[in-house]
């Protein structure tokens, strides 16, 4: 089942996992992937699954469709290809989904996709050696400090700590946190206490360097990448005329797009859905192995790729940037006790566990300090959200999903629902 990651610059706008044969992309609300931006045509492109392959077709869009920065009209796309539409990119990942994810995904069945444009945060240095410089906050965590392993390295500042502060990109904005630095990071003149949400225009002082937090209007240019797509034969193509050129620096001004409905592509390519027995079995399992009140033990995965029912199972917010980076751990606080707790634990376990002399950690040869970091996680859906999701799923085309929705709703509300 492919995953599509919609990005604006390096910021993940939304992640999608579809299990259907035709995925439509465009600005108009009735598309599967709605990109609410004028650089994208109403019906911009279409991704079609055909014998386990994915064919991308440009629907005569104003700004064109690019795969790995080559303009295409119709091409097969592969894992990790990057599709560019106007200012947005969509990364295509052909991944496998576990049963357990399917349960969670079923919760997202038919959820309306509203793409919100997440503006890019920028840190502009206004005072200090780097005055005039701007840093785009494209990563999930951007660290600031004197040490060279920071994302923003500011040397020549006496009051800058090696690790001064971090700016985290959350799903709905940015957050600044001090790293317990020598001279505390100040926000609008006040020293930071704990993490704080940033607003545009906020003045941040790191050491004696002053910066302003802004939101960028223009996204970053898409990165040039990998595989060169092969254009499919002209007779296969709905629109012939291939222009294999890299995307122009400025996409054609979208403001001039003629306000006339783009002619819908003839629907001859939409066959009647053929249900896959494997997927039906998987969904049936989800539906049947249910414990009375809590979701059942559904131990394990693997819907084979490119099979399954053609229902939209999930859209997920891009809480996490595709390229998360590691943040070197620095021990906070002082650990002055040299006491090894092992003995105490041993006693506590009261001989239930016998100590083994095999030094596995050494034998396996750990090399270098392990780096760790933190990322936001996805919150659990609450009851209202869950009810809303399942109520929507009652309208689903699939009788299996409707049945599952009715069951869930009965559990949640105690009432009977017609499928």
């Amino acid at each position: 089942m492919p995953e599509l990651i919609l990005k604006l610059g390096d910021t993940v706008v939304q992640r999608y996992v579809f299990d259907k044969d035709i995925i439509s992309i465009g600005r108009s609300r009735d598309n599967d992937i709605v990109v609410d931006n004028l650089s994208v045509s109403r019906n911009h492109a279409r991704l079609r699954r055909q014998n386990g392959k994915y064919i991308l077709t440009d629907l005569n869009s104003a700004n064109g469709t690019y795969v790995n920065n080559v303009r295409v009209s119709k091409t097969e796309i592969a894992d990790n290809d990057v599709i560019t539409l106007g200012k947005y990119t969509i990364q295509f990942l052909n991944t496998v989904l576990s049963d357990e994810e399917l349960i969670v995904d079923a919760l997202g069945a038919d959820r309306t996709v509203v793409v919100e444009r997440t503006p890019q945060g920028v840190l502009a240095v206004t005072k200090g050696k780097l005055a005039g410089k701007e840093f785009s906050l494209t990563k999930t965590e951007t660290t600031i400090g004197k040490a060279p392993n920071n994302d923003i390295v500011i040397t020549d500042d006496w009051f800058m700590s090696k690790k001064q502060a971090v700016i985290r990109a959350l799903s709905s904005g940015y957050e600044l946190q001090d790293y317990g630095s020598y001279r505390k990071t100040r926000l609008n003149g006040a020293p930071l206490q704990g993490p704080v949400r940033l607003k545009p225009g906020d003045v941040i002082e790191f050491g004696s360097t002053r910066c302003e937090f802004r939101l960028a209007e223009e996204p970053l240019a898409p990165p040039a990448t990998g595989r060169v797509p092969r254009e499919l034969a002209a007779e296969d193509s709905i629109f012939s005329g291939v222009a294999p050129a890299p995307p122009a620096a400025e996409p054609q001004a979208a403001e001039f797009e003629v306000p006339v409905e783009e002619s819908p592509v003839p629907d001859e390519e939409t066959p009647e859905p053929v249900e896959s027995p494997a997927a039906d079995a998987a969904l049936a399992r989800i539906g049947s192995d249910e414990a009375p009140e809590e979701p059942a033990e559904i131990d394990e995965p693997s819907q084979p790729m490119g099979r399954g029912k053609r229902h939209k199972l999930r859209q997920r917010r891009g809480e996490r940037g595709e390229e998360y980076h590691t943040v070197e751990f620095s021990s906070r606080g002082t650990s002055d006790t040299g006491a090894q707790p092992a003995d105490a634990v041993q006693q506590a376990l009261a001989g239930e566990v016998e100590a083994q002399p095999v030094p596995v950690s050494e034998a396996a040869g750990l090399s270098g300090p392990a780096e760790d970091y933190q990322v936001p996680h996805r919150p659990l859906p609450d009851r209202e959200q869950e009810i809303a999701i399942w109520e929507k799923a009652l309208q689903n085309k699939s009788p299996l999903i409707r049945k599952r929705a009715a069951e869930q709703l009965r559990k949640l509300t105690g009432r009977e629902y017609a499928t």
Partner: protein
Amino acid sequence: MRLEGLNPRRVGVFSDIHGNLQALQSVIQCLDSMSVDLMVCCGDVVGYGANPNECCELLRERNIPTIAGNHDYAALSKIDITYFNEVAKRAINWTRKTLTPENEQYLRALPLTVELSEMLFVHASPRNPEAWNYIITMGDARQSFKHYGQRVCFIGHSHTPFIVENEGGNLSCPEKPEITLREGCRYLVNVGSVGQPRDRNPDACYCVYDREARRLEIRRTKYDMTRAQDTIREQGLPIELAERLAYGL
């Protein structure tokens, strides 16, 4: 099982190692560097991964209190694996053959819960640890809060980290990976998975609870995944088990 006589300042909690030695080593290394006073493992030491014996031995060597998970039970034939899918079944059958008698005995002795002052550790859900129910919605979380009295309950099982805060019946699930415990609130913390994360982040996941600073943190670390994958392939385990590690699925 109740742990007596311990008063750790900082506790490292992790779960669902699933025989992934490289990930476990990386997590223990991180926790060591954070000077935790106690580590607790919330179960599923084996199943899926290719180093079940080594994982058991590392936990035994470090005297890490460990809880039994459903895969540990399955490997000991304590539960029926009819409802496991094919890949999981094959992995469990392989694990059954591979486990040494000592490690089998070790797993057999694992308790279903561990209690330590304000903390409860359980693999799946506090309501009925042996039912292995998943907590995947706020409703499930709400049910769970009714079944334990401790302030903080650490779980694993779903391989997806989260923190749920219960303020007098009002539940919230902050997205942030790091929170400060508030007076009068109780917590349910899923510490994610060490050896097979399924939240689309392939890096090993664990939790640090600083009792003194009253902070809970969910942290991630990279590990030698290539080696873990190679071992899975070398041992003739289903190839999907190696592949999924890279996707965090």
